[in-house]
């Protein structure tokens, strides 16, 4: 599977470096290595979800309990979480770090991913969720750290879009 193990390791290390102790996740192709890394890490609490919106609750609970967390999901999972984000994380001012694999962009071979790719950034803008893209390995550590800092300073969500050029090693 051409999902990049090396890039996944860099992303995982960046999460660890900014103090993440709980990761909630719903598997998707680009996230498989990240989820395995969380599963193999005895210091990480990994919560495998049935639907992504639960992850907003898990992260709120972790925050109340004094732990930093991150949600790992596909952009369609982000779209499925919106009420939890708006009337949970935003209404109650929860710092929420979201790592969203940005499927359906240039190079996407799967027809079913293509609508989500068109709307993800627009929905983030509409929700006033600050976000940056992670397209190169050099961007990962500083942007993850800065997103975490902003999420905690603002007590609001912040998102990072995992791009194809970072996560996928074969040219499409």
């Amino acid at each position, binding site marked *: 599977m051409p999902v990049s193990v090396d890039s996944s390791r860099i992303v995982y290390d960046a999460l660890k470096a900014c103090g993440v*102790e*709980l990761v909630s996740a719903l598997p998707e192709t680009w996230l498989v290595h990240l989820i395995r890394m969380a599963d193999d890490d005895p210091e990480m*609490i990994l*919560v*495998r*979800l*049935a*639907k992504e*919106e*639960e*992850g*907003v*609750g*898990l*992260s*709120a*609970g*972790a*925050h*109340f*309990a*004094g*732990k930093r*967390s991150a949600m790992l999901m596909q952009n369609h999972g982000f779209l499925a979480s919106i*009420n*939890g984000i708006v*009337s*949970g994380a935003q*209404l*109650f*001012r929860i710092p929420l770090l979201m790592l969203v694999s940005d499927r359906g962009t240039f190079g996407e071979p799967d027809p079913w991913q293509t609508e989500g790719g068109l709307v993800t950034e627009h929905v983030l803008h509409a929700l006033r969720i600050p976000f940056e893209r992670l397209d190169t390995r050099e961007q990962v550590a500083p942007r993850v750290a800065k997103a975490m800092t902003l999420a905690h300073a603002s007590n609001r969500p912040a998102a990072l879009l995992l791009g194809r050029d970072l996560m996928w090693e074969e040219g499409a």
Partner: protein
Amino acid sequence: MRRLEALQAIYPELERRVVVTIMGAVAAELQSLGHRPGFFYLQHAMGIASSIGLGIALCRPELEVVVLDGDGSVLMNMGGLTTMGRYRPPNLTHVVFDNESLLSVGGFPTATSAGSDLAAVAAASGIPATERVSDVDAFADAFNRALASDRLTTIVAKVDAHYEAPARTKGFVTDLGLLENRFQFARHLRSLVEER
């Protein structure tokens, strides 16, 4: 059984614990019995109160966490029961007040009024202990058994679809601000961690 009477019966135990409730009647009635800094009322985001309780329970195994849920909320996040059943933290007790309706928006009947059985769903989702009760004494017994056990328990308590706004409460809106509650709760949990 009246939900308020059920809450009264377990209030002395709730007072000493970390409690996450759903919005509406449960939140207003628990506040009417006396707000405590360990009580958080999720006044929206229907469905994920149980996910918040799960997050706290997994992150702080030394804390005893109670979630006061409802049939409408559980039906919106039924997959969440399978997540609870999967991780089954022993320090979590999950109460579902089932009035078979969406009371705060006009009392429209939910699927539990037509036979959907949330205790059976919880059991089939892997929650290790489930109870189904319909009077106050049985509810208090089930709740105390759940606290004494070291197993995640879901208690489905059948209650009347009845609500009378308590004093100082307008409809379902109390005089405790959402964010005041949220920051007080977080600070309280931090103090519990620091005590240890």
